[in-house]
């Protein structure tokens, strides 16, 4: 990486998680640098989601330390993670179909104008800012259109625009390309490039090998709750990653 000396946005050391007698994660160390796209791969039950939920503040780790931009952080709730600058784009995107794109982008942090004691929504400002964000993401999405009427790619853009609103420094995307058409996959990968250009670190959780190889700088493979590989993308191959995921190859 070009900026290997930069402070990592996210640094996990010795992260472990037990649910009763089940060890879901064991001694995971990892770093994510600013503007880096990291692929997180692994079979079902490998510990990917647990790891993501720990970073997003859904679970507290049983062991280990999380550092964000150099400072140790402890998340009790997802809101805590969001406050420091970690945003998650969920697999089902967490959009309200019956609202407009702009309303979804600003959901839970609406812009308001004060009229005496009454605060009313500032529709104009929200639409303008949303249009700006869609412009940055180069997505043809109108702020006033209902999400119900949008394509999969546009929905992704709305979900990602939401993360841009808070100037997140780390965006985690959970299977963003799982259920959309080939053309829309292109758009989503484009959106990830836009985030990278703006110095945002992206963690891409995906099952789709081609997508990971298309956008990621580095790939991390999880298996049985442990990190088995952490390699720059150009030093590995889909075959090797597959072997690591299935366990044909133990570690790399």
């Amino acid at each position, binding site marked *: 990486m070009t900026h290997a000396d930069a402070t990592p946005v996210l640094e996990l050391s010795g992260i472990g998680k037990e649910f009763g007698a089940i060890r879901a994660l064991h001694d995971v160390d990892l770093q994510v640098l600013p503007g880096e796209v990291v692929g997180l791969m692994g079979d079902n039950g490998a510990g990917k989601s647990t790891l993501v939920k720990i970073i997003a503040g859904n679970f507290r780790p049983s062991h280990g330390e999380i550092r964000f931009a150099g400072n140790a952080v402890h998340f009790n709730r*997802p*809101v805590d993670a*969001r406050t420091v600058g970690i945003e998650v784009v*969920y697999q*089902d*995107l*967490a*959009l*309200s*179909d*019956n*609202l407009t794109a702009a*309303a979804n982008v600003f*959901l*839970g*942090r*609406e812009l*308001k104008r004060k009229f005496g004691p*009454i*605060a*009313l*929504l500032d*529709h104009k400002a929200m639409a303008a800012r949303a*249009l*700006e964000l*869609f*412009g*940055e993401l*180069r*997505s*043809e*999405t*109108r702020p006033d*259109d*209902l999400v119900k*009427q949008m394509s999969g790619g*546009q929905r992704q853009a709305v979900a990602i625009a*939401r993360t*841009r609103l808070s*100037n997140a420094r780390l965006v985690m995307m959970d299977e963003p390309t799982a259920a959309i058409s080939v053309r829309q996959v292109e758009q989503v990968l484009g959106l990830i490039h836009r985030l990278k250009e*703006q110095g945002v670190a992206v963690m891409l959780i995906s099952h789709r090998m081609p997508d990971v190889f298309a956008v990621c700088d580095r790939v991390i493979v999880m298996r049985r709750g442990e990190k088995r590989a952490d390699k720059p993308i150009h030093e590995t191959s889909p075959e090797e990653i597959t072997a690591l995921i299935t366990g044909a190859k133990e570690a790399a």
Partner: protein
Amino acid sequence: MAMPMESPISFTNVGKIRWWQRGIFASQTGYVLLALSVLLVIMHFASPYFFTEGNMQNVAKNFSFIAIATLGVTFVIITGGIDLSVGSMMCFSAMITSMVMTELSAPGSPLVHMAADGKTVLANVPGLILLISILAGLGVALIAGLVNGFCIAVLGLSPFVTTLGMLSIVRGLGYVVSNGRGSFPGGPDADYFYALTSGDVLGVPVPFIYLVILALTMAVVLHHSAFGRHVFALGGNEKAAELTGIPVVRVKIEVYVICALAAGLQGIIISGWLGSAPANMATSYELNVIAAAVIGGANLAGGIGGPLGAIVGCVLLEVIRNGLVLAQVSSYWQQTLVGVIIILAVLVDRIRSRMT
């Protein structure tokens, strides 16, 4: 990170949604409004009495009697919930209001004194008894709404079951406090009470005025406040609402409280018009109220609805009832027809959404 845009977005692949494909024009409310206008025209030709001032006043008054509660239940329906306890709530609030009024007006209450003739009771502070009794009536509605909201939002019980239970609880309590006899507004402030509930201003029935004010307030709250936006978001995708940090529990409790208060207010107004609050008052009104909301375009699956739809639904029901009376059709047909219209309204909306 205000980046200058390299080029403004061009919408080459994404067509613009036309004005007639969005907003009210593409909603069930719009279609039902159209149907209502057609119905009004038909009524005009069918009966010379329909558009007379007296009949219009009657219609306005009658639909106002369920419309305020319909506004309240629309809030709940938009979040994807349901409130079956509105009918009982109307009765209980009305009953408590008139009982408190009578109680406070009895000789010996600190709020009254005897007039010179030794028989008539006068209020020490005019209007105070009325205010306290209405607040008491709304107070019990508030409590019932909080209990509904708590059970649904915090304990996670199903809205249908919770409010079905509340329907029975509140109706039962009504019988308990009144011994099944019902109650009557009485005392020195009763005249104010009747003026405020069944009077009229310049020929416009006061319930109708309340309705218009409340509907306008509701429109502003739903479309121009963060609370309203959260209500819609909750109905559209509850999980998403939660993930984006909307206080889901609070919003849910609030809508059930709003609904109960609207029903309570409605009950108090109805009792003013009836002149009493009988223990079986407003029985099964919840069905009329929910039917009106659904006909007007509120979607029981959540996410869609508004004050205009609620009112349009109520007006449609009342115009049909009124029309059947003017046409001298047996009033037993009314209920059958209402059922047909509920299904038709939803059917037309389904066909429309298939076509686009």
